[in-house]
């Protein structure tokens, strides 16, 4: 890490004399990888500035720690960690992008995860900063990282039950034009007064309402006044 | 019947009423000044729609606040929540009683008006603390505690810095201090160290930038006033600007000769013309200091709580004590005292 501190070090000059287009530039990296991980040689793949390797999810910590600590590889920076879903019946994939001063290419490590039991060892021990990446993957995809001590939802509220980034989570095609107009299913039925959005929903919910919903039993006067307001905009709070 | 007593009471009542009424235009003028001056410093126009050149904008703001709903949140401590703004405003308004505006134009002539002034001014901290506690809001609580710590700390250098003037003039009455300055020149010449201490401590005492962490927007929302709305918030708002006026007035009175003109002839005139002449110079000098405070607000960031307390206890207090020592020695050695 010390050589990084000096602005004039070979590491910092590396970018200036690099040409991007030739895959041959990645040759040194490919050789180093096949030397150290002969079992992964079959999965190696390169494009103009990326070298890709596929591993099994269970091995991710072992492979990533070797990639980070090996002096000839020295992938010290975790550029990205993301998950991809290949659909029901297929598998998940957790993709790590790494950067090293010694090699001009991004290294992409694709870790395969079983979709029926989406467990993967956490890499927060290697890079603390993977914490938010893993929390996001848990929130969006439902992948569980064993060993992560703060695996809670990061974007959606804690009581949310679905995983929006999965392929089987479909967006409403055009919610405003559908029959469900006005009721966004996520508008928190336990906190919202649904009678404000739709009368039918209000009639179907339990008569004992939690506090905060407008359960003021309307007297006959109020009912009278309500009656001639059928054309009022029910989506607005009164 | 003791007609003197009756006349005295009548004079007091009239003067108090007039001063209470004076607070309203004072606050409006200072708010307008702040709106406009800060706008110009920030390369904006500032309010320019209401009245000629937007002159009535602050008045409109004031009346708007008066007409807003006054919310009392559910869990607040109602009696103290209601009382706090009143305490803060009255503390500010009552301390105006002893300010000498012009020769003979002082509501409450007393030989210990300096003591009265600082005693009453100290009351406003109680109001702020009560407001912070009663609001049932953590931001308010933090604001209240900050105001208590800050104002209690700064009372000490503030008071010590004027003791120099008191020793020099030998009087605890504002009027006599001004008369001493008529003879000897402005006190700021004699108190070159005392005046900066007083000015810094006064700025902190009235929670102005850069010592405004009591209501620091970016940290604790609106501090003690977070839960206040309507006219109760208006009282805080008014009190802030009235205090600014009062502090500037006291700075002028103690260090810059009060109603005296900046040149010796005629520093002071007689009769009705003299009153007007004194008023003119008094307000000119006072608003100059108000302008300085507004200027600081547009320019400076806010200091941190620990730096603020450190400044009070580690710098201002020792320097104020040293200043007092030097002043006392000088008064004895050169026999400068106003007490002949």
């Amino acid at each position, binding site marked *: *890490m010390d050589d*990084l*501190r000096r*602005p004039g070090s070979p*590491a*910092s000059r590396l*970018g*200036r004399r690099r040409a*991007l287009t030739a895959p041959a530039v990645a040759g040194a990296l490919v050789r180093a990888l096949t030397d150290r991980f002969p079992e992964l040689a079959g999965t190696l793949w390169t494009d103009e500035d*990326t070298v*890709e390797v596929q591993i099994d999810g269970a091995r991710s910590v072992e492979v990533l720690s070797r990639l980070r600590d090996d002096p000839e590889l020295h992938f010290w*920076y*975790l*550029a*990205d960690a993301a998950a*991809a879903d290949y659909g029901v019946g297929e598998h998940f994939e957790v993709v790590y*992008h790494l*950067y090293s001063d010694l090699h001009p290419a991004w290294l*992409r490590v694709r870790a395969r995860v079983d979709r029926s039991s989406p467990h993967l060892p956490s890499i927060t021990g290697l890079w*603390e*900063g993977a914490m*938010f*990446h893993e929390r996001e993957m848990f929130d969006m995809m439902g992948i569980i990282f064993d060993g992560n*001590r*703060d695996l*809670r939802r*990061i*974007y*959606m509220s804690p009581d949310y039950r679905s995983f*929006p*980034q999965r392929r089987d989570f479909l*967006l409403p095609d055009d919610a405003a034009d559908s029959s469900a107009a006005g009721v966004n299913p996520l508008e928190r039925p336990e906190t919202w007064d649904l009678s404000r959005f739709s009368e039918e929903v209000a009639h179907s919910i339990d008569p*004992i*309402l*939690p*506090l905060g919903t407008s359960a003021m039993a309307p007297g006959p006067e109020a009912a009278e006044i309500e009656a001639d307001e059928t054309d009022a905009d029910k989506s607005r709070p009164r | 019947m003791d007609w003197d007593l009756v006349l005295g009471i009548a004079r007091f009542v009239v003067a108090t009423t007039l001063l209470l009424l004076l607070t309203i235009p004072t606050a409006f003028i200072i708010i307008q000044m702040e709106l406009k001056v800060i706008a110009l*410093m*920030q390369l*904006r126009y500032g309010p320019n729609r209401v009245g000629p050149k937007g002159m009535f904008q602050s008045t409109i703001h004031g009346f708007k606040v008066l007409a807003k709903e006054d919310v009392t949140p*559910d*869990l607040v*401590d*109602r009696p103290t929540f209601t009382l706090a703004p009143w305490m803060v405003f009255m503390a500010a308004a009552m301390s105006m009683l002893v300010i000498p505006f012009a020769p003979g134009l002082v509501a409450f002539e007393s030989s210990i008006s300096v003591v009265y002034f600082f005693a009453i001014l100290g009351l406003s901290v109680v109001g702020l603390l009560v407001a912070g506690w009663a609001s*049932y809001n*953590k931001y308010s*609580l*933090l604001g209240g505690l*900050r105001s208590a710590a800050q104002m209690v700390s700064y009372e000490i250098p503030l008071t010590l810095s004027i003791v120099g003037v008191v020793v020099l003039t030998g009087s605890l009455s504002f009027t006599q201090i001004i008369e001493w300055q008529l003879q000897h020149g402005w006190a700021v010449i004699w108190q070159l160290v005392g005046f900066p201490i007083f000015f810094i401590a006064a700025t902190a005492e009235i929670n102005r930038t850069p010592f*405004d962490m009591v209501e620091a927007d*970016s*940290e604790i*929302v609106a501090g003690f006033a977070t839960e206040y709305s309507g006219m109760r918030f208006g009282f805080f708002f008014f009190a802030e600007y009235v205090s600014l006026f009062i502090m500037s007035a006291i700075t002028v009175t103690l260090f810059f000769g009060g109603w005296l003109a900046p040149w010796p002839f005629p520093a002071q005139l007689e009769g009705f013309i003299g009153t007007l002449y004194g008023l003119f110079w008094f307000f000119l000098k006072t608003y100059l200091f108000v302008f300085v405070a507004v200027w600081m607000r*547009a320019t*400076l960031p*806010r*200091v*941190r*709580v*620990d*730096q603020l307390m450190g400044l009070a206890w580690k710098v201002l207090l020792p320097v104020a004590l040293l200043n007092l020592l030097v002043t006392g020695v000088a008064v004895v050695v050169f026999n400068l005292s106003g007490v002949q």
Partner: protein
Amino acid sequence: MTAVDPETRVPDPIELDRAEEARLHAALGVDLPPRPGDEYAGFDTVGIPDRPPQTEREAEIYTLDEGEMLVNMGPQHPSTHGVMRLVVKVRGEVVVDLDPVLGYLHRGIEKLCENATYTTVLTYVDPMDYLSSMHNEHAPAIAFEKLYGIRAPKRAEYIRALVVELNRVFSHGLMMGFLALDMGGLTPILYGFINRDETVELLSAISGQRMLFNFFRVGGVNWDVSDEFISRLSSWRSNVGRSIGDNEALITENEIFTARTKGMGVLSGERAIALGVSGPNLRASGVPFDVRKAHPYSIYHELEFEVITHSAGDVYARYLQRIAEIKQSLHLIDQIVDQMPHGPVQAQVPGIIRPKPGRAFGAVESPRGLYSVYAISDGGPNPYRFRMRDPSFISLQVMPVLMPGHLIADTMAIMASLDPIMGGVDK
């Protein structure tokens, strides 16, 4: 005064509310909240969510020791830079622990992009990091061009570099203002906005939009720059130094400012790397990692510049880092305008593109750090998977590391020095 007949009196609605509330509470068996005169609820007991903690960390933050209190900053707070919630555990004024709660601006942009064609993705990513929309478009443009196997013309690459550097100038300029604003200085933010407004007007002259520019296309840019634009640019260029200098004069040497920022929130280089911090925040800790140098994209390998670093790693260093980068960007803009070649600005690309199945990773250096896009194509008109890595999202993890031991007043200063933009954090 006429006496009111209780039978015909219309009851006060607030009374009705109270009665109804009491009835509901009785029906549900819930305790009424304390009214005045009831026992006063103490400050130390409220604040912990009424569900069991889900993780170790959550249990840790919500476990209060003697004399500690939770302060909730946000989601609406004057200076959380958008909608973010900071649960701050304080002992007096000293922060003991801090937990950022995100998601108040989660708009599901990734999912929407997966349902949009490649061209429209470039409009969806604009509002992510809304102070650097040009960079937001740059990264997916790079990734999609890799996927589709084309390159933008040379002139288009120069125009891209020009607009992203312009964007960097006003983004860093606003950061100076926000930092001062969070410390109570009112004026620097206005000066920063003058600069920003001039710059976005300049950018809207070529993109047609003032803030969310939507200027990049797959294989080029939307419009060519005209001579008129270049002349406007040069007049802007002659003014901008002065306006940045004005702001600097207000802040940089100010004693209150330096006393509040020097030595505060120190982040070491090793810790910053481990936490995934990037961009100016990382370079202010002494690590010379700049994507423009480390992995050159666009035409940055043709431009002369050095990676700027500061070693202190505190708030003041992060501030100085931004100032230095503004000057560097102005230098880059000069070079770009000098070297700009002639030619087309858009490659021949159909309206709906269907890249061959594959994966691509595109990374740019945004004003907040490494902004990257990972796109998977399945041969269809939409990206199969579209992933964005936003630098300010990752930088926010620094807050719980830096804050303990500092005062509440420093929370906002440290956060402003990290310069997170919640649109990017929450996607």
